[in-house]
């Protein structure tokens, strides 16, 4: 295939965010002074920790619902399940499996509510799901702060606030800490690889690939392309959209369990708040857009986004003597990436509309000349 100047510009334009991150990382890595071994080790940890959560974003994008900021609801479901599992003193892999199972009903309920609301806000799904996330955060806090203890019995005193009800700010997940990561651990030239976690992520990838080929998956793709045409073709559009959000929420719940087993600590009131934004920023960095995303985008996004996360504090410190700059930089970049991607998406949409209008005009002129 011959690469012309136009195709190169188009490729550059379509992957502007990714290119920008490659440049940031290319400058940041030598500035940070970290060794290759350290960086690879850290990246492997980040891939095992975050990939599952980011994979949960693929299904709503397929159904044309954009980036699901409502994935925080799934994260909340996973956290509630982990609080119960910790209270019941269940540990290890059984605790993880149990937490995943327990998170499902919460995820289904929250996902259905979110999906139904999003059906009422077609075309404005992203901002609506973002606000639903804030609203549900309040409901979650009410549940964890006031219902756990007096209504839902919590026996473990280490979990409950000194006043006798409500969950403490931090829950120690020592019982499940790295239980999956350490299940099958292989060391390759000094870098530890959590094989079992990668196998679970691989299963999730296979599920998504398989799901795309099912009848429901095909329906979602059709709904994502055109609502009216899909509806005329007999697809239950609204139901399909709700199912896509429910699936995403359930997967986000599992992802949160996987994420927290790696962290080993649950920050009861904050763990889920940043998850949606960081996951969305990562998938956008990987080259995804509001209406198109694939599995390679997830992994490329985790690598580039988290590489920036790892190197920026040290690069900032070495550059101007303040690590705080790097901390500030990464939060600023997360929001910046989302904004830039949304702007680029709108620009591309407008450009494509212009191009097709121009094409139509040229065709019409040719027809009139004939």
């Amino acid at each position, binding site marked *: 295939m011959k690469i012309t100047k136009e195709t190169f510009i188009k490729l550059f334009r379509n992957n502007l965010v990714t290119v920008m991150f490659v440049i940031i990382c290319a400058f940041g890595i030598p500035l940070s002074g970290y060794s290759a071994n350290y960086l690879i080790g850290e990246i492997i940890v980040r891939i095992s920790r975050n990939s599952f959560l980011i994979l949960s974003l693929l299904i709503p994008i397929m159904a044309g619902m954009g980036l699901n900021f409502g994935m925080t609801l799934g994260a909340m479901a996973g956290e509630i399940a982990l609080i119960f599992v910790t209270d019941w003193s269940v*540990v290890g892999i059984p605790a993880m499996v149990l937490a995943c199972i327990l998170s499902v009903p919460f995820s289904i309920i929250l996902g259905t509510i979110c999906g139904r609301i999003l059906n009422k806000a077609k075309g404005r799904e992203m901002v609506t799901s973002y606000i639903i996330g804030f609203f549900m955060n309040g409901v979650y806090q009410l549940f964890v702060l006031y219902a756990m203890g007096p209504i839902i019995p919590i026996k473990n005193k280490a979990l409950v606030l000194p006043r006798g009800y409500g969950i403490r700010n931090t829950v120690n997940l020592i019982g499940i800490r790295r239980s999956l990561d350490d299940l099958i651990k292989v060391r390759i030239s000094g870098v530890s690889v959590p094989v079992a976690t990668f196998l679970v992520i691989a299963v999730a990838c296979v599920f998504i690939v398989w799901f795309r080929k099912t009848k429901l998956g095909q329906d979602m793709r059709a709904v994502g392309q055109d609502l009216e045409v899909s509806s005329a073709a007999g697809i239950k559009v609204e139901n399909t959209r709700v199912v896509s959000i429910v699936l995403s929420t359930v997967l986000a719940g599992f992802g949160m369990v996987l994420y927290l087993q790696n962290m080993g600590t649950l920050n009861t009131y904050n763990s889920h708040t940043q998850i949606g934004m960081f996951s969305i920023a990562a998938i956008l960095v990987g080259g995804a857009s509001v209406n198109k995303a694939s599995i390679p985008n997830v992994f490329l996004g985790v690598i580039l986004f988290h590489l920036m996360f790892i190197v920026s504090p040290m690069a900032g410190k070495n550059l101007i003597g303040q690590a705080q700059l790097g901390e500030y930089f990464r939060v600023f970049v997360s929001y910046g990436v989302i904004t830039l991607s949304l702007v680029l998406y709108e620009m591309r949409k407008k450009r494509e509309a212009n191009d097709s209008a121009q094409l139509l005009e040229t065709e019409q002129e040719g027809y009139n000349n004939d």
Partner: protein
Amino acid sequence: MTRRTIVRISALVVILLLAFAMLRIGRQHSILLDDKTVTVQGQEYKALDMVEVKVDKQDSVELVKRDRDVAVVTGQSHKIKVTYTDAQWNEIELERKIKIPFDKEMIVFSVPAFIENPDDDTYYLMPFETTSVGN
């Protein structure tokens, strides 16, 4: 009842059974290994001067008179091995399987009672009860 409903109900039952199995397999218990003089069912069992207790494949614990240690275990069934020296300086080894009740988070394993009645766990396994300091 349609085939789809049957499949859905079966899947739900399998998931519930899996959750229950995980709850039983993964539940953590603390066994308090106690070498104290106790009275069980009207019979007094004297504490041993020194005894070695091993729970499953964990490191063995050495207890002296009036000593208490803890073994944290996962699941209900466990193997306990007690090694001690009798009055004739013979080393005796006793090994039994114990079953911890599911609802008990902490249980006391009385070594002196175990040595006298190793085949009846009602003698040596007792629930741990905390006594609050009164006013």
